[in-house]
């Protein structure tokens, strides 16, 4: 074997060869766009070239009424999905794993199915159920109470019922399965010793399940924060395109898409993206400190 070949096959070099595709793809398709994205947020990007404008975009964002609507919609959506999609799936998972529920496999199998559908298809289904036409399921319910048909997707709170139900429909089963996996990792002997100490059902949940489920809860909260803040396609599908009446469905990513792709104002859109990233990182950082996952001032063990 030649010296070079021998080196290539050595244990020292091999790991670098294995990670090479990852490193290349990381540099080219992650680090580079991340840095350019942040730089572009300080630039005016036109066909002619790039012009440094400092923090002008950010100053403009503070004044931008539509950006304000987008941020408040996204944050609102994130909070509401957290409220709906953490406790309910958790309780369903506890019930699912209890000895009470029969035919568990069937329910788990069915509850995951909505997550298989794309946003296009699930969005279409919910659009039709919340249709202003007479056959829309929500209007059929209204008709039962003698009310006339209603344009559900044109008023904010009724439209958001649809938006949140769509989100719950798709993710309740998935989050439940996360919690089921978390519950399975809890050793049964902990519950047995709890029973010996005379703990009732609620106490067992409060003092055993909840604390031991924390890693799972933190994980689900973290991904829900990101998913909630960067929601776009659900709204895109529900209102058929990126414009909803009075911007009731405008989200941060929706606004980024509008400025960057539809209006070709890349620099400004990148500033929107940077703000999104900062909001997401800050919220998750606070969450990780609040739950004790990251300990401030102490080294993690």
């Amino acid at each position, binding site marked *: 074997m030649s010296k070079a070949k021998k080196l290539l096959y050595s*244990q020292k070099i*091999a*790991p670098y060869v*294995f*990670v090479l595709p*990852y*490193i290349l*793809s*990381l540099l080219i*398709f*992650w680090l*580079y*766009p*991340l840095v350019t*994205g942040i730089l*572009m947020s300080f630039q005016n990007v036109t066909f002619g070239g790039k012009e440094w404008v400092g923090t002008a975009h950010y100053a403009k964002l503070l004044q931008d009424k539509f950006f304000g609507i987008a941020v408040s919609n996204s944050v609102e959506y994130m909070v509401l999905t957290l409220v709906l999609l953490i406790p309910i799936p958790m309780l369903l998972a506890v*019930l*699912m794993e209890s000895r*009470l*529920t*029969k*035919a568990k496999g069937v*329910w*788990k199998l*069915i509850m995951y*199915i*909505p997550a*298989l*559908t*794309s946003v*296009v*298809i699930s969005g*279409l289904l*919910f659009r*039709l*159920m919340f249709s202003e*036409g*007479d*056959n829309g*399921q929500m209007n059929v319910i209204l008709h039962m109470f003698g009310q006339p048909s209603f344009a559900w997707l044109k008023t904010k709170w009724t439209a958001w019922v649809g938006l949140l139900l769509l989100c719950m429909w798709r993710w*309740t*089963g998935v989050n439940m*399965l*996360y919690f089921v*996996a978390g519950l399975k990792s809890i050793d049964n002997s902990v519950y047995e010793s709890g029973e010996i100490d005379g703990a009732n*059902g609620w106490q067992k949940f409060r003092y055993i399940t909840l604390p031991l489920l924390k*890693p*799972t809860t933190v*994980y*689900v909260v973290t991904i829900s924060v*990101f998913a909630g*803040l960067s929601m776009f396609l659900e709204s895109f*599908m529900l209102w058929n395109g990126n414009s909803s009446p009075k911007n009731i469905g405008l989200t941060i990513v929706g606004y*980024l898409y509008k400025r*960057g*792709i539809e209006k070709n104002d890349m620099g400004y859109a*990148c500033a929107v*993206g940077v703000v*999104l*990233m900062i909001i997401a990182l800050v919220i998750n950082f606070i969450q990780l400190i609040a739950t004790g996952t990251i300990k401030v001032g102490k080294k993690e063990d």
Partner: protein
Amino acid sequence: MAKNTNTPRTMESARRVPSILATGLFVLVCLLIAFPLVAGFLASFRPGSEVVTKGMSLDFHSPLILDNYRILFAKFFPKGMPDDAIVGSKNYFMWYKNSLILTVTTVVLTLLVCYFIAYALSMYKFKLNGFLFFMVIATMSVPFEILMLPLYQEITTLGIINTNAGVILPGLCAAGTIFFFKQYMTSLPRELLDAGRVDGCTEYGIAIKIMMPITKPAFASQAILCAMGSWNNMLWPMLVFRDTKKFTLQIGLNTLLTPYGNNYDLLIAGSMFGIIPILIVYLIFNRYLVDGMTSGAVKG
């Protein structure tokens, strides 16, 4: 809780009512979850324009018709079908084929890249080990949407806009998949590596011929997750593909949903038919999928 003095039998009957309630709750939840899909499936047997303008009727008095599916499959049974139906059907199956090709390629490439980095991270001690693991976590905490616009410019410059490469390449570093592989491989005996070396296997031979076959279950679960993600992916492909001929199924279906559309029959039947491949994969590999998805949630 029941007292210890109770016989198993009375405990059994004391649990019957709560058990019916608990199981009943899941029956109800599953009925609610099934409802939109059942309604959509029924709607696919009704005139598309009526469905889109008025909503999905559950009225069983109006007849179910096969017209939508005739239009959907017009390409294969063109006899007596109008030309625009055949064109629509051809487009639909072209998008379908594009999605299949894109999904298979994405799965193969992503899994290979992720397998090899996870393999290096869990089997070798080398200088970049800690740093690379940190990068895997870092990629998780940056939302894709911030990269979207610079990436869009970048792939335009690279000349891979409107190609599968433009969709696939930016998604190769799938942090969740790397985590899963790494977790799976740490539980494997590392003596296998030494055994392989003694037998004269090269480092690459060990990774491919010895370790890869043992990691098969991990490949299975990540392949399904990755395939589902790719089949349903929409935002990024929507930016990359400019040309109707390149569209994936999801983008194609979305274009049918215009306010002045005359393709609603195709849309509604095509949407239902678009769930089928994923549903089949899911029903066959359900167990692997749940394992692959939830592993990250347990260890945190």
